């Protein structure tokens, strides 16, 4: 294998990985920015998305329907959870959220096991994106190419949503100064419910998209949650561009690290996180000094 095709395919591979990580990280960082919650259940929400997507794909017979239905259903669930439980806790300190979201992670893991069983479920990707394509004479799965594209499209969409729409403005304002937004006559609680739902929806989107690659299984939550934390910490908690940079950085370290230094890849990821935090305790684009 010559160097250039190898580099190109690995880069696209890393991009597709970054897309999946980005869907997780962006939800986590939005939720943190608005509510100062470290959501321990985010990995489980991602897993829930994959399983709901599996069922939706079974019922409708179409991956595309699942891709739309699962994030919406999971987002509704997230909103309901915020509305029912998290809302009572905003006056309390952070440990309350830690316990509640940790509890939710346990409950979700068990409910998923009870409903879907403990076996890994195969989710078929869309027929249009099966098979391989040749990039500079190197075979490459089309589905990964599609993931990389989806990541870019969604990142652009979120960016435009945050920058151009009124709701995006409200979200940015609330993460800057919730009290002021409240004083100006916006129901901040509504924004919080919405953002928690949206964050969960993105995680679910990531879950559905990952399912054809890794199957929907009970190990999904634990395997991604710490990656998601690392991304958000590196990028800066609460920063949208930060989560994008974090996802890219982590994905490239994972893909190339696994190839060149398989023994050190894992440690290298945490080492980057440490160095970033020591140099900039708030993360690369974070606010806190």
């Amino acid at each position, binding site marked *: 294998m010559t160097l250039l095709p190898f580099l190109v395919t690995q880069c696209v591979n890393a991009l597709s990985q970054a897309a999946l990580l980005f869907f997780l990280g962006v939800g986590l960082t939005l939720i943190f920015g608005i509510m100062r919650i*470290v959501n321990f259940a985010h990995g489980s929400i991602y897993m829930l998305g994959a399983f709901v997507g599996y069922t939706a794909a079974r019922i409708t017979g179409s991956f595309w329907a699942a891709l739309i239905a699962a994030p919406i259903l999971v987002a509704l669930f997230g909103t309901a959870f915020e509305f029912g439980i998290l809302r009572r806790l905003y006056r309390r300190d952070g*440990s*309350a959220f830690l*316990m*509640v979201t940790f*509890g939710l992670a346990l*409950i979700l893991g068990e*409910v998923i096991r009870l409903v879907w069983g403990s076996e890994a479920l195969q989710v078929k990707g869309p027929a249009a994106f099966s098979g391989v394509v040749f990039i500079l004479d190197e075979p490459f799965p089309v589905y990964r190419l599609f993931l990389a594209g989806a990541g870019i499209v969604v990142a652009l969409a979120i960016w435009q949503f945050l920058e151009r729409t009124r709701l995006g403005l409200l979200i940015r304002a609330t993460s800057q100064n919730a009290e002021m937004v409240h004083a100006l006559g916006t129901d901040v609680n509504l924004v919080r419910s919405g953002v928690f739902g949206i964050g969960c929806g993105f995680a679910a989107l990531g879950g559905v998209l990952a399912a054809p690659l890794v199957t929907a299984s009970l190990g999904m939550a634990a395997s991604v949650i710490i990656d998601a*934390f690392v991304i958000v910490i590196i990028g800066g908690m609460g920063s949208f561009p930060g989560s994008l940079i974090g996802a890219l950085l982590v994905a490239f370290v994972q893909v190339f690290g696994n190839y060149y230094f398989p023994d050190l890849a894992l440690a290298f990821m945490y080492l980057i996180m440490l160095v970033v935090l020591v140099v900039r305790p708030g993360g690369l684009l974070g606010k806190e000094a």
Partner: protein
Amino acid sequence: MRGWLGTIIVVGVLACAPAGLPPFAMTLLTEALILGLFAMSLDLMVGYTRLISFGHAAAYGLGAYTSGYLLLHTDIAMPFAVIAAALFSGVVAIGVAWVCTLASGVSFSMLTLAFAQLLYAVAFKWTSVTGASDGLAGIPRSPGPFGTTFFVGKSGFYYLVLVCLFGGFVFCRSLVRSPFGSVLRGIRENEAKTLSLGYNTRCYKIAVVAISFTLGGLAGALYAPFAGFANTELLFWLFSGQVLIMVIVGGAGTLVGPIIGAAFFMLVSNVLSSWTDSWALFFGLIFILFVLFAPQGIWGLATQAFTGEVAGARRGRWRSLNWTG
């Protein structure tokens, strides 16, 4: 609560436990006490200094791997290996804390998480020392010191754990009631003010992390010969989350609370898992109910019920208001 009387009674009852309990219950109790020591060590950071560590498993894992390694590869008597492992954990903590205390708040928590995960990654790959994913297995309870085999047996080991827990508790209680403890509480309530009073808060924070890691390492060092193995799960972030929850469920900032929290955690997970396969479901529900309805934790709840009766009947509000400080 009532000076030393309550403590002595509890320790007395625990000391009699090997005479009355079946072996299975003794194993559970020993593990609960080890976890209690671990949770109590975290309480020094979380409850008294408000240094929320997401990586306390690092202390436990360091202790467990070090004592496991010493017991497997040297002839050191178990109690000495345990102490050496605890001290090693404390020394490493000075370096960790020196870096972590550069930040505060959420960033501090994330740095501790990063360190613990780094150790996890190292333990996962450093096959020659840590045994990688298999971990260290067959860790013996080496006899000694001075030729005694007392600690090798089940109840002897239990007494070793009990002594460590009791010693740790007495030490922590003296510590939080000392001038050093007052500074820690000052940092918890208002770090800027404490700093302006002339205390080098960063030194105090590093010191408390080192002490906390030493005690947490002691717990881990006891666990390795107790279970006979040490694996990477002892360093995993999930375990850090669990011990943090033990502290909060029990009642942070009370020392006794986290021990009860750890025992509660052990007991409930064992009872539930023997009763239903879906124990995690009920476990999660219990956490959420605790947060919603009993934020002060088990010990806080018990204290409240206790003083509520007594204070309400005799001395009225004044006492109950002043008693919490």
